[in-house]
């Protein structure tokens, strides 16, 4: 299946002009982004409020952080369904530490460490024992969420210091242009990930591992090492997202971040990353994040209910894959006819 998939993608690149080949992978999410902005502006006079949209990016940064790390994991040919549960454990740890009087800096550091640790546990089962990542992280999805519930029970932790709460309300340039701090942090992390994937040996190893793990191993790439690092990065980002989310909400419950993994995976795939590995870019993921955000924000401002929002995102996810394939097919057909 992945084979045909790749072949169809190649056709787009061969058949089109160079510029088209370059933006080809991003085309679906760009189209979605533009369409959502148009829809939002037409359906609600309140949608095109730039500063409000900027502030609202705060809600998507957590998804974005998870999506960045998931991009690397998926390029490797793996998947991590446990990220949102990992986020909950990291947030719970941070909350309990703050409650017991530990300083917020130490607690935040502990959240990162716990996230990294849980990512390492995933890596241990998947890479160390050679088990499929889909099943292992399906299990740790339940396991980690259960751990968060055991840690917090039915309590909400609320005793965070005032100075820590509300990172999404801090804007970098004051009132002149309300660029929220989380957005800037996200873009910086995205840049780092982009450099990691495109300018380092690790990045190259990821693409090769995802394209053909055996071939990569034979050509001397430490595929086990590469995959394990990706899972740990994913855990680290879950910890970082936990800090952001906790600061935004000012409280922690064991069900925090429930279901974020599906949104994050949707973003990655919409951004053109091949779910079977070997292909994908950080830029694609970033554009897709803003596309999903535009879709959600335009629907919510038009008073569309939650389930319908989810369904629309589902349709877009599928269309984003089908339409380019269809276009490629039609083009192939017409070129064949021309040859005849």
């Amino acid at each position, binding site marked *: 299946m992945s084979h045909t998939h790749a072949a169809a993608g190649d056709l787009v690149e061969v058949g089109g002009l160079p510029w088209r080949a370059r933006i080809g992978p991003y085309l679906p999410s760009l189209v979605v982004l533009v369409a959502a902005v148009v829809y939002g502006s037409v359906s609600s006079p309140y949608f095109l409020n730039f500063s409000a949209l900027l502030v609202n990016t705060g809600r998507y940064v957590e998804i974005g952080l998870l999506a960045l790390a998931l991009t690397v994991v998926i390029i490797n040919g793996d998947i991590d369904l446990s990220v949102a549960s990992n986020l909950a454990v990291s947030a719970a740890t941070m909350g309990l530490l703050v409650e017991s009087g530990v300083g917020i800096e130490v607690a935040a550091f502990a959240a990162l460490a716990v996230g990294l640790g849980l990512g390492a546990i995933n890596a241990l089962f998947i890479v160390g024992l050679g088990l499929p990542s889909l099943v292992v992280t399906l299990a740790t999805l339940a396991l980690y969420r259960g751990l968060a519930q055991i840690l917090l029970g*039915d309590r*909400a932790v609320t005793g965070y210091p005032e100075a820590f709460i509300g990172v999404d309300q801090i804007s970098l340039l004051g009132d002149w242009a309300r660029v929220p701090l989380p957005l800037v942090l996200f873009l910086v992390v995205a840049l780092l990930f982009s450099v990691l994937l495109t300018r380092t040996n690790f990045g190259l190893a990821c693409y090769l591992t995802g394209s053909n793990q055996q071939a990569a191993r034979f050509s001397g790439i430490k595929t086990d090492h590469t995959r394990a690092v990706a899972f740990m990065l994913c855990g680290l980002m879950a910890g970082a997202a936990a800090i952001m989310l906790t600061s935004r909400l000012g409280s922690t419950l064991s069900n925090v971040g429930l279901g974020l993994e599906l949104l994050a995976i949707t973003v990655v795939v919409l951004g053109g990353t091949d779910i079977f590995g070997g292909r994908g870019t950080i830029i694609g993921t970033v554009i897709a994040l803003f596309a999903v955000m535009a879709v959600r924000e335009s629907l919510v401002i038009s008073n569309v209910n939650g389930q319908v929002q*989810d369904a629309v995102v589902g349709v877009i996810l599928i269309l984003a894959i089908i339409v380019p394939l269809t276009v490629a097919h039609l083009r192939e057909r017409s070129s064949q006819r021309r040859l005849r």
Partner: protein
Amino acid sequence: MRRVRRSAVLVATAASMAVVLAACGGTSTSDEAPAEAPAEEAPAEAPAAGGEALRVTYIPKNLGNPYFDAIVKGFQEAAPGLNMTVEVVAPAQAGATDQIPFIDAAIQQQVDAIAISPNDADALCPSLKRAADAGIIVITVNGDTAADCRQASITPVDFSQLGKYLVDLTAQVTGGKGEWAFLSATSTAPDQNSWLAGADEYIASGQSPAGLTLVDTVYGDDAPDKSATEAQALLTKYPNLAAINAPTTVGIAAAAQVLSQSPKKGQVQVTGLGTPNQMREFIKDGTVQKFALWDPALQGTIAANLIAGIKAGTIAPAADLEFEVPGVGQRVMAGADRVIIAGPPQEFDASNIDNFDF
């Protein structure tokens, strides 16, 4: 030939997905229609504040829940007379943070007021405070946040007495003796937890019916299958169980359904809080003797009037303020927390259940 056919199927699939997409968008706009339609025919005797209609967004916990539909009904029946339009939007799940985008959207839409049935007491506070900063009236309905995050709160009945009431209700259906258990919603549900705590206090005080023993409290997570599993487990664990009390509409229906098909039907009583429409069947077949709730619509009516009053300046929320709700009567914002009790509990049994439809 094959190729041609496949392309055709691809195009057809893509087209059909696009149709689904259009259908989703289409229905969402038609959803708004019923809420807005009455406003356009708003009668002339609109309050002096009149002129442009008041725009109110009500955010229930989630959709498809007949209980919140009844609150919405109360809102919409009161709205035309108050020159008010009510927009109802809700998230897919009742998660702690799922309502936040809807609050933010209401702020962006510059509505006059937000009424919300919060899913979480703390996580929504920052967003609600931002709404208040933007000059939007914020009230909570059927559930509450910290008192400084909203101007007033409407609670269906006196929640501080509800724990005691649930114990007494159990005593009524069991004749005051035997083992009984709570089947609650999620373990994090703030309302249910406060009632459970109230019941514990009442029992600990020694004033509760002496023959009753509370043997367990289990959580069905407001999911029918989990609730049914838990109810079944209660029947198994406690062979002498006299009653299951489920203070949640999902839980009570699941427990009644399990019992109606169990040999223990008649031996074990199910009671608690449920809506008449979902429980009518079990009252009629004798599985359930009596259960209770309140009239959820009343909260919608009071909320609509309260918002109109605050906007017009006739009601200025303050501790122990008394105010008149037209057609309902005198109500009071009790205590520094400004909590308004909508009314008394309503009990349902075979004699009166057919008089209710919600």
